[in-house]
Each structure stands twice: as structure tokens, then as C-alpha cells.
């Protein structure tokens, strides 16, 4: 007997009709999400992709010296190259001189190897007097560095379109003469210190926040609604208040003539003329960031603790557990999801903090974000800023991924 098909009212098999309805619903849901998805894709995700692209993009010089690099392909990079390379360089530099755009390659080449700046400037100045033929000799006559292979090797090294040199710089490494990766000199290693400091501050701020937030979340979760609502304001008001307002209040408190220093002097911990420096160093960054990020720890902890029934602790007690044992064996394990959520959130926010360290951190309390901003706005090394940004982004996305696995992104609690 063949299987009987169930038909819907309009004569289409039910299975088919259900599938159709399912497809329609799916399409409807996707269409609802689509506008925001496209918006974020175009104005946010693509620009971030563009930033990654900028951090490795090294095509500028390749485009400006095309004939040189063409000729260099046949050169093995050992001795001095032959005439065609110099001829290409002559043609490229002449062209750049006519267009007055050689300034760009000077900066790029000088970054590759110092000494290029004067070399190119001098060559460009004299290039119009060059006679046709035998360019190699004429170049060497203008500047003897053109007879030193290391300069030509450095020039050849800039030929590839893509370069990860900025990433190496971000971890205090560089290429040496033979394109080997080495650490930079001891006294120029600043980025490793910066990364370590950023991780250090983020880690300790997370720990401090946890230590401060755990007891008060417990209190908020166990007090009767009447009182806990009132105390909750202490958590939520800073949460809703402008970051700059909160930072400026810390600047008031921590300044040399500020209330905290007054208190220290009054207690007698320091002399009036020898007030401790509480701001513009890493202490200021720690204190202000802990207070500012504390609500982000309290809210997830509170929402988890709220769901723990008080009868569990009573049960523990009635079974003979001391308060400490019942806490460690019953209460604490139940709050671990909240601890994970809070700590990851605070750590993620702390690692990319910019405003507070910039205002109260000074030089010794500035973090990786501040350095990115410096390279974006002051040194204008956008490629390097992008590389540092990409490295930070990879770290944050890794933690975000863990957060998503452990907590689920839709469980973020806001107020």
C-alpha cells in the first residue's frame, strides 16, 4: 500500500506546504536583520578590513619605482647590481623629480635604512645633469653610498607589495640586513613594555573589580528589595554618568591639592610639602579604571546571585556545614557563571581603554590605545597605528569568542 499523502486545504501536500511556510518565515526573519547587517557591514566591518589592509600595504614605493624594481628582479642581491638597475633608478627618479613626489619615498626608504634621506636628496638634485649611458658610474660619482651593496639591498627589500614590518615593530622586532627577524636594540624596546603594561593593568583592574564587586553583589542580591533598590542606585548612577565626568571627578580627587592628598597629610602619612603624586602615573589609571568599570562587574554577578535560592545555604547549614564551608561548596560554585561573565567583560573593556589613561595616566600609565591614538593623530604613521590596532583587535576578539562560548552574547546584562 502506498503511503497516503496528507493534503492541505488548497491541495498541495502538507509537507511541501509546511516547508514553504518555513522558508517564508526564514526569509522574513533574514529580511528584518538585513538592514542593520548591511549597515554594519558597510560602515563598520569593511572599514576594519580596510584597516587590516593598511597595516600590511606597502605598494606606495613599488608604484613609485617600477622600472628599478623590474630591473632588480634579475639581480641576486650579492654584489652591486648591473647597469639596467641604475638605468631604471635614473628613469624613476627623473620622473619623480618632475612630479615633485620623491619626498614620499625618502620617508619610506629612510625607515628601511637610515642614510637614505641625504642619499636620495643629493641624487635628485644632481640627476638633471646626468648624461646618457653608464648610469652606474654617474650614480656612484654623486654619492659613494650607491657603491655600497647594503643600500641597494635595502632598496630591493622594499619591493614587495605587502610587508609585515609594522607588526614586527609592534613587538620590538625588525628585519636585519639579511631579512632575518631580530629584536631591536635593548634601549629601543618600548612596545613589549607597553603590551605588558596594558595586560597588567587590565588584569589587576579585573581582579580589583572582582574583589570589590563580589561582596556588594551578594549584599544587593540578599537584601530585601526595598533596600537593595536604593543601594542599586549607587551602582547604576555611575554606570549612566558620562565617562568624562567620572574621570574628571578622579582628577579632582587625586590632584596634589585634592581631598585624598589632604587626607593623607592630615593622617600624617606624608608631609604637606611632600605630597605623593597620585595622578599622571599608573596608580591613577588603576584607581580610576577600577571605579569606572566596577558596575560592569556588579551587574552580571548580581543577576546570577539573584537566581540562587537562599534555601540552598540553609540546607548546607542544616547538614552541618560551617558558613565558610557552605559558601565555598555551595554558593561560590553557583556564582561562577557570573564571575566569568563579569571578569571577561571588564577585561575586554579595560584592555582597550583610552580616555581615562590618557587623562589620569600620564606617561607611565598610558596604555596601548593611547599609543594607537598617538600614531593616528601625532606621528601620522597610520600603517603602524593600524598594525597595533589589528593586534589589539585579535586579542579582544579572542576573548570575545571565549565570552560568547561561555556566557552567550545574548546574556549580556545592561542595568
Amino acid at each position, binding site marked *: 500500500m502506498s503511503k497516503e499523502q496528507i493534503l492541505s486545504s488548497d491541495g498541495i501536500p502538507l509537507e511541501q506546504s509546511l516547508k514553504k511556510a518555513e522558508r517564508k518565515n526564514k526569509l522574513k526573519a533574514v529580511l528584518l536583520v538585513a538592514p542593520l547587517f548591511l549597515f554594519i557591514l558597510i560602515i563598520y*566591518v569593511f572599514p576594519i578590513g580596510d584597516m587590516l589592509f593598511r597595516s600590511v600595504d606597502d605598494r606606495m614605493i613599488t608604484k613609485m619605482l617600477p622600472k628599478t624594481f623590474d630591473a632588480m628582479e634579475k639581480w641576486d642581491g650579492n654584489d652591486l647590481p648591473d647597469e639596467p638597475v641604475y638605468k631604471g633608478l635614473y628613469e624613476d627618479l627623473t620622473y619623480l623629480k618632475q612630479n615633485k613626489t620623491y619626498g614620499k619615498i625618502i620617508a619610506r626608504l629612510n625607515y628601511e635604512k637610515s642614510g637614505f634621506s641625504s642619499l636620495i636628496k643629493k641624487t635628485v638634485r644632481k640627476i638633471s645633469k646626468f648624461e646618457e649611458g653608464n648610469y652606474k658610474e654617474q650614480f656612484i660619482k654623486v654619492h659613494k653610498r650607491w657603491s655600497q651593496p647594503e643600500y641597494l639591498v635595502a632598496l630591493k627589500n622594499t619591493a614587495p607589495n605587502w610587508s609585515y614590518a609594522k607588526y614586527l615593530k609592534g613587538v620590538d622586532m625588525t628585519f636585519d640586513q639579511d631579512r632575518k627577524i631580530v629584536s631591536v636594540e635593548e634601549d629601543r624596546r618600548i612596545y613589549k613594555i607597553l603590551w605588558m603594561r596594558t595586560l597588567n593593568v587590565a588584569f589587576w583592574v579585573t581582579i580589583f573589580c572582582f574583589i570589590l564587586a563580589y561582596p556588594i553583589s551578594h549584599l544587593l542580591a540578599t537584601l530585601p528589595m526595598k533596600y537593595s533598590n536604593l543601594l542599586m542606585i549607587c551602582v547604576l548612577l555611575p554606570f549612566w554618568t558620562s565617562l568624562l*565626568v567620572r574621570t574628571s571627578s578622579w582628577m579632582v580627587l587625586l590632584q596634589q591639592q585634592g581631598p585624598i592628598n589632604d587626607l593623607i597629610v592630615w593622617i600624617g602619612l606624608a608631609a604637606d610639602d611632600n605630597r605623593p603624586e597620585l595622578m599622571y602615573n599608573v596608580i591613577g589609571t588603576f584607581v580610576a579604571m577600577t571605579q569606572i568599570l566596577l558596575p560592569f562587574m556588579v551587574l552580571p554577578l548580581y543577576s546570577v546571585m539573584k537566581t540562587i535560592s537562599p534555601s540552598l545555604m540553609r540546607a548546607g547549614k542544616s547538614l552541618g556545614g560551617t558558613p565558610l564551608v557552605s559558601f565555598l561548596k555551595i554558593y561560590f560554585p553557583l556564582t561562577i557563571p557570573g564571575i566569568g561573565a563579569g571578569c571577561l567583560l571588564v577585561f575586554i573593556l579595560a584592555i*582597550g581603554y*583610552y580616555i581615562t589613561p590618557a587623562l589620569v595616566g600620564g606617561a607611565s600609565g598610558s596604555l596601548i590605545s593611547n599609543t*594607537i591614538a598617538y600614531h593616528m593623530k601625532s606621528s601620522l604613521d597610520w600603517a603602524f597605528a593600524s598594525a597595533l590596532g589589528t593586534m589589539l583587535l585579535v586579542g579582544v576578539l579572542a576573548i570575545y569568542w571565549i565570552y560568547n562560548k561561555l556566557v552567550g552574547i545574548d546574556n549580556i546584562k545592561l542595568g
Partner: protein
Amino acid sequence: MALPNHTPLNYRIWHYTYLTFCGFVFFFLIAPLFVILPLSFNAEQYIHFSAKMLALDPEGFSLRWYEDMIYGTKNPWGLATKNSLFIAFFATIGSTILGTVAALGLSSRHMPYKAAFMALLISPMIVPLIISGTAIFFFMAKVGLAATHTGIILSHIILGTPFVVITVTATLSGFDHSVTRAAASLGSNPVNTFMKITLPLIMPGVISGALFAFVTSFDEVVVVLFLAGLDNTTIPIQMWVGLREQLSPTIMAVATCLIVMSTLILVTAELLRRRSERLRGINR
């Protein structure tokens, strides 16, 4: 939290230590905000509690910094306030509409790859602002929207939508879908159902998301620092500039106004949250 009479001494000590510690933490959270209030009424131009203020002498207090904030010569606060409100208003509208619509899709059980979409749409909240600022700056410069209100509004929409998506999906998680089916069976078309049934029920979530979006835009400084020209200055930018130079009492006056504003927003958000819980039948 009175303890029973028979509580042993060591538990008593432990309990009061715990309460004292909590009191200290609450103080640590809230006290810094209240340092600003009296200083904004300082009659002197130093950010310091003067002897007259401590003695509560009326002469130690004045409104001159508020006057300076509003009527001061060449002061930037008027333009900054106008810009901030303008940008935050349109950014809030954009975030709220885009975020609410997306949340409706994300809450549907037919949505494919829900977790991945959610993670992507929330990411502007997680990615450090300095990275968002850098990336958005490159983009806006490329399309010619740097130093325009439009560019700043678009980037603030990006930063605000995650909050709307989160609050509205949270509201929708307790949503009883049988009411929309009932409306449909009574002959209502989807748009009508949304406007008359769904929207009023999720309104508290939408408004609290909108409040978040508003505050995010109104407080945002990093992205604006990259994008703003002289005409696009906002309150946070002016505070940032002022704080980098020196602490001035006028900034304390502005900060006080912002604290008052955030208090109002907090109260509104709290009332909405309670109303939402009542509407969704969550009793605590």
C-alpha cells in the same frame, strides 16, 4: 540585616566586617560623583574646597561658573550642546529603528545562524573604541564624510545599535507570540499587528534601548575625536579639551549638569524596567 541574638561573636565580627566593606565599596562608587557638585558652586577659581566653603559661609559659594558656562565670552558650550543634542537625537532614532527591526528578526525562531549574526551585530560594543574610531575615520575620510555631522551620526548609530538589540531581544524573550497569532487570525495584517500589538508590548525595551543609544552618543568622545572638525565639537570633546589643559570650575559646572541629566535618565530607565517586568508578567 539584624543578626539573631544567639549569633556567636566571631560570626558577628565577620558579619559587620562584611557590611563595613560593602559600605566602603558603595562609598567608593558614588562619592567621587558628589565631589563635583560643591566645587561647581565654588566662588574661587581653584578646584579646591576653600576655607569659606568648609565653614558653609554663603560667600564661599556662587553661581559664577554656571554663568560662565552659559554667557561666557567665546565659550564653546552653546555650540557643543547644540551639536551634541543634534547628533545624539538622530543617532538615537537611527539606532532604535535599525536595532529594533533587527531584534525582531533575531528573536524569530526561524532565523538561521542566529548566534553568529548576534555576535556580529553586538561587536561594536566589544571592539575597543580606539579601533572603531580608527577604522571609521579611514572610511569617512574616503567617502568625504569626515568632519560632518552625518559622518558622526552614522558612526554613533553603529555604536548605539548593540544596546538596542540587547534590550529589545531581552524584552522579546518573554514575549507571548500567541497574541500576534490571535491578531492575525482576527484579520490584522503584519504591519498593523506590529504597530498595535507588538510595539506597545515591547515599548519599555525599545525606550530603554533608545536611552542607552542616546547616552552612548551623548557621551562618546573617542570616535568624535577622530571625526570632528571645529564645527562638529560636542560636549565630551570640549570637556576632553578642557581637562587636558587644566581643571576649571566651568568644567565642574558642566559636569554637574551632566550628572543631573544622568540621574534623570537613570530614574526613567528604572521605571521602564519595572513597567516592562510588570507587562511581561515577571513578578519578583
